[in-house]
């Protein structure tokens, strides 16, 4: 078996995913190979239906691949059971969604503390939570429910929830997709700050070329395949097209 260096956060080997639709097999990912180092901030770009979300769900262990392997911190999660993948997700991965996905019945603080409860005792003490809340500018809003927060504020709470247990990897599925440019800028700035200050590995899906430019590396996808595995700080013509015509 291929040995994965300890500096590697994510490594996929010939990763393929095929959905079954009636009698048809619909390929979503085909032999995807890429590596993400610890502390990297990468963006995955591509047109709708190119397999970005499927890839993110596979990395998070929410889906089981049809073929290939996914190594998270050196552990091949493609061979694990559902409960083992859940444990990996709980311990090593934080999720940020386009539509925030906060629990509407809980306050901002309740949402963050729920993530701690699910994790166990949480990797951070009260001071750590306060530090993250302060870093994300949420100190004043912790007792508000999601319906009482703006989109940008909700996404900041969602980011706090994703990182409160100090996962080694944060998976962000179009985190700025539902935000205006002002709030998008703020959220991206925060993700960058978390990446730099807390050293968190971030994998972000985006349609937005400006958002992608925040990342240290961009991976371009099309038709379930990776076009450019190491694309640094510059966008190809096809990517710009994809960004302009999502």
């Amino acid at each position, binding site marked *: 078996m291929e040995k994965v260096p300890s500096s590697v956060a994510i490594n996929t080997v010939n990763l393929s995913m095929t959905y079954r639709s009636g009698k048809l097999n619909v390929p979503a990912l085909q032999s995807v190979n890429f590596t993400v180092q610890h502390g990297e901030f990468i963006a995955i770009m591509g047109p709708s239906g190119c397999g970005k979300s499927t890839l993110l*769900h596979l990395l*998070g262990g*929410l*889906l089981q691949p049809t073929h290939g392997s996914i190594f998270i911190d050196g552990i091949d999660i493609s061979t694990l059971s*559902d*409960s083992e993948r*859940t*444990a990996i*997700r*709980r*311990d090593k*991965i934080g*999720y940020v*969604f386009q539509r925030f*996905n*906060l*629990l*509407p*019945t*809980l*306050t901002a*603080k*309740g949402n963050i*503390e*729920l*993530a701690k*409860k*699910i*994790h166990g005792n949480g990797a951070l003490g009260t001071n750590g939570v306060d530090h993250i809340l302060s870093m994300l500018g949420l100190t004043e809003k912790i007792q508000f429910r999601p319906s009482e927060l703006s989109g940008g504020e909700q996404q900041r709470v969602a980011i706090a*929830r994703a990182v409160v247990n100090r996962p080694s990897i944060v998976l962000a599925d179009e985190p700025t997709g539902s935000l205006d440019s002002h709030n998008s800028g703020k959220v991206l700035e925060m993700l960058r700050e978390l990446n730099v200050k807390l050293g968190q590995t971030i994998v972000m899906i985006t349609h937005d070329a400006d958002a992608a430019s925040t990342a240290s590396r961009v991976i371009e996808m099309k038709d379930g395949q990776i076009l450019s595995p190491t694309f640094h700080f510059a966008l190809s013509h096809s990517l710009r097209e994809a960004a302009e015509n999502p």
Partner: protein
Amino acid sequence: MENLIAANIRSRPTRTFISVLAVALGVVLMLVIGGIVSGTLNDYLGRTVAVGADFILQPAGSSVLYAFSDASLNSKLAGTMQQVSGIESVTPVLSKFSPAHFGLVFGIDLDSYNKFPGRLQMVSGRASLKGDEAIVDQILAEAKKLKPGMTMNILDHDFTITGICRSGAVVRVFLPLETLQKLLGTTDRVTVLFAKAAPNVPVEEVYQNLRKQFPHYSLLRASDPNLLLAETRLPGLKEFRIAVIAVSMLLSFMVILLAMYTTIFERTREIGILKALGASRNFIVGMILKESVMICGLGALLGICISEIIRKVVILMSPTLQVSMTFGDLLGGMVLGITAGILGALYPAYKAARMDPVKALSYE
């Protein structure tokens, strides 16, 4: 930490209210109906014991609930029984259910009846039972506003009330034995014979003597209600209690099943979020079960409170009706509510735990 379960319960007040109310209804059904059955039975058995007889002789296969028994015992057996060694006194009784006051009336021979420790103790009027005379107890007198000298229609026949006796007597209405026998067309027939052992003679020895003398009759020892309950035949009582508990439980179970099943579909996306955050299947099952137990616990508590109110109202409005609710019954109500909650939530919890997180996250 803000509790997710409490927040879920608070955020769906209508569902919570209806579920709590339905569980409460199941508990009320069990406690009140069961309480009326137990209360009436215990009260009746207690008052039977209060006659002070050591033995009750009935035809074979009879029940101590005399409403189920007919008058098939020859009253001459009283004389035979009196001759048995160790017997001090015997009194024959003819019983009949009276729909007018929804209870039994006893036709008695007052002289022999009053030789028993539970003799009629008059609180007003006089102790006389001849012809068309009747004696009623205090509770019935208060409930029906009866006084000595008044006329009361019993079994389509008018009786003059001669006296009011202290409550606690075996029944609430006493008539002359001969009059009741004529009314029912059962001359020389009685329902039961009460007998008392002579002092200083071992009761067990007298029991064995009676057993030898009356081998084909039902002979009960009447010294305490539990013994009487254990020895007597109460047709269908156990089955009735089981049926009431089963209906109550089914009601609570179905309401919780429906409520939690609807809730998990309503919360599909939330379950997807929890899974994405790393919540295990056990965490999700636990969350649904705890929520259900909390709703059912509230329902059971409400049911207990409502049952207690109903008990007080029933006793106030119908003093002759007894509703028994022991600590054990109330505990049983709590257990019923919570058990129904757990059972009703099991399937929805299983469904929630098995949800595909990706589909759940994209659920609109």
